[in-house]
């Protein structure tokens, strides 16, 4: 290749580059403080339009007043000086979206922060978008398998549902979300984990674990760290929603975890107070409810006529000292289609996941449950409810009549069986047969401390020697009478070998 050719090409590129001079609207910075800038000028600016500062930072116009514009800065605001020029872009805030994001860690502006190659895309999706309307939607009918026995059986989640995970700090909220992401391996589901105001060390640990379990191949992590500006934390869940909509528009199923929305509300409160918007209850601004409702409405199951696809949302809320009646928790509880309530008392007793079955509900998920699971979960719920009533009498032991004692014994075994280790998701057909054995009394004569061992051995036995029963449950989605017969014989056979 000759030198002249290269020079010729360069000249051509420069000449061909379309540079037309256009009038732009500019503003002047009046005031900078804690990630928020006040400007005058910018007379034609739109709400949530992107602005560019001379240090390259991007701003978003939030407050449009008579003679001033208030904006938050996405990125470093320390270089912005009073009196400097701000240019409007005429574009609403959006982020690039592409398939290449899968397996990557990005910030809320769509830039890679995992040190690998840059993410480039021509396609951009707006951060704020209207949720699908009534016509486009379809009721939830396909399950999301979390791989956690207690959730899949009693609080089932469907594709397109919004299920809140709520509880105090350190009770395993994130663990449930991560287990669910790990369990989506090979289930044709794209997962997005949005870390809002989380410690970078926690995000690094989660990323490491997902990589170890081979779950990064279908996962995107969006990070707004604890040291990033509040504007990033505010924007992160909307960025996650924009990416999930991109995949839903292609007819794919997406699971998005917002960890956690309490910190999101804090970030928005900070920005609002600096923008001098009037504070309301607990100093949150008046539109804090709308902040979360417009985000979670974007989770939907779309009708096949409109391309299918779904976005399932798992928002997380951290309560203070178990207070679910605080402002933000009650708001989000009322927006979502049910909640998974985790309790620190249960956690400390060693019941993990520390699920409070009485207070946890799923309002729409039961229509997404397989028939087989439905068959066993009804009895399971009943056993647990009866046990809770009788639990207080358990200490009287021998004074109780036969039936009460049997119910207590069954309850204790149920609680023991529902315990599950982290990063150990279980296939739904295995869950079904294990719970079938429990609810039909096959485990009543197993000692409580042997339950988990019994369960492990039984699953191994089913996998290795009775594969056809598991396959039949998977294929038909239910337990037919024929399968029941075979299953009961199999359980009896197993019990003979186990007791030896």
């Amino acid at each position, binding site marked *: 290749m000759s030198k002249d050719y290269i020079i010729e090409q360069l000249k051509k*590129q*420069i000449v061909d*580059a379309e*540079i037309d001079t*256009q009038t*732009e*609207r*500019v503003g002047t910075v009046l005031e900078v403080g804690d990630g928020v800038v006040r400007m005058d000028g910018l007379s034609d600016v739109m709400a949530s339009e992107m602005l560019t500062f001379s240090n390259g930072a991007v701003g978003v116009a939030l407050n449009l007043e008579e003679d001033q514009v208030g904006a938050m800065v996405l990125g470093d605001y320390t270089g912005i000086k009073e009196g400097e020029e701000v240019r409007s872009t005429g574009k609403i805030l959006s982020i690039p979206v592409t398939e290449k994001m899968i397996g990557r860690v990005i910030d809320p502006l769509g830039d890679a922060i995992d040190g690998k190659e840059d993410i480039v895309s021509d396609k951009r999706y707006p951060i704020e978008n209207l949720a699908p309307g009534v016509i486009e939607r379809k009721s939830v009918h396909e399950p999301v398998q979390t791989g956690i026995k207690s959730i899949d059986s009693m609080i089932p989640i469907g594709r397109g549902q919004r299920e809140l995970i709520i509880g105090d700090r350190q009770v395993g909220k994130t663990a449930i979300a991560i287990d669910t992401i790990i369990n989506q391996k090979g289930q044709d589901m794209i997962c997005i984990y949005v870390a809002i105001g989380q410690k970078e060390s926690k995000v690094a640990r989660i990323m490491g674990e997902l990589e170890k379990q081979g779950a990064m191949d279908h996962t995107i992590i969006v990070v707004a760290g604890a040291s990033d500006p509040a504007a990033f934390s505010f924007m992160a869940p909307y960025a996650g929603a924009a990416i999930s909509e991109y995949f839903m528009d292609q007819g794919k199923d997406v699971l998005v975890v917002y960890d956690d929305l309490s910190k999101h509300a804090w970030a928005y409160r900070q920005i609002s107070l600096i923008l001098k918007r009037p504070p309301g209850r607990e100093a949150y601004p008046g539109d804090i409810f709308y902040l979360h409702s417009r985000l979670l409405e974007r989770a939907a199951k779309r009708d096949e006529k409109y391309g299918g696809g779904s976005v399932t949302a798992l928002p997380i809320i951290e309560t203070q000292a178990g207070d679910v009646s605080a402002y933000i928790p009650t708001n989000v509880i009322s927006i979502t289609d049910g909640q998974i309530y985790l309790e620190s008392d249960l956690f400390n007793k060693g019941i993990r996941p520390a699920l409070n079955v009485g207070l946890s509900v799923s309002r729409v998920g039961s229509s997404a449950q397989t028939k087989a699971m439905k068959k066993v979960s009804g009895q399971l719920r009943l056993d647990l409810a009866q046990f809770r009533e009788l639990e207080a009498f358990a200490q009287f032991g021998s004074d109780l009549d036969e039936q009460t004692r049997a119910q207590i014994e069954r309850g204790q075994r149920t609680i023991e069986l529902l315990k599950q280790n982290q990063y150990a998701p279980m296939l739904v057909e295995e869950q079904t047969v294990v719970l079938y054995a429990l609810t039909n009394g096959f485990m009543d004569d197993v000692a409580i401390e042997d339950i988990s061992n019994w369960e492990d051995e039984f699953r191994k036995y089913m996998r290795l020697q009775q594969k056809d029963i598991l396959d039949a449950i998977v294929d038909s989605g239910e337990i037919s009478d024929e399968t029941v017969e075979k299953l009961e014989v199999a359980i009896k056979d197993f019990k003979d070998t186990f007791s030896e």
Partner: protein
Amino acid sequence: MKVSAKQYANTLYSLTESKGEREIDQVIVKFVSYLKKTGNLKKSHDIVEQFNAVYNEQHNIIEATVTSARTLDINEQNKIKLFIGNHYGASDVIAQYVIDRKIKGGIIIKVGDEVLDGSIQQRINILNRNLKVKT
């Protein structure tokens, strides 16, 4: 009720509109003593600024800032003024000329919050951005 500087400026304009010099002098004295009475003298700087804007708007005058890398001769200045006048439909243009070597060449015309950036530096910036996107 709080009265803004803009409202004061509008009032001052309508009070002084099509009046002789002597009358204006009287109006101004009264206006200033009213400002003093209501404790609004601190706003006088803003009021002057706003009055300027109101006056220009009513008389169809445009104030423009023209930035260039070198001093412009009278011919060029008149051409620019004519262009601005035509572009905004103004009857008179008050132009302020600024020299800034950093823009390398071309001119930047700024009217209010509208900027027409025809500088070489801006073209380099755009070219830089376009070439970055292509690679």
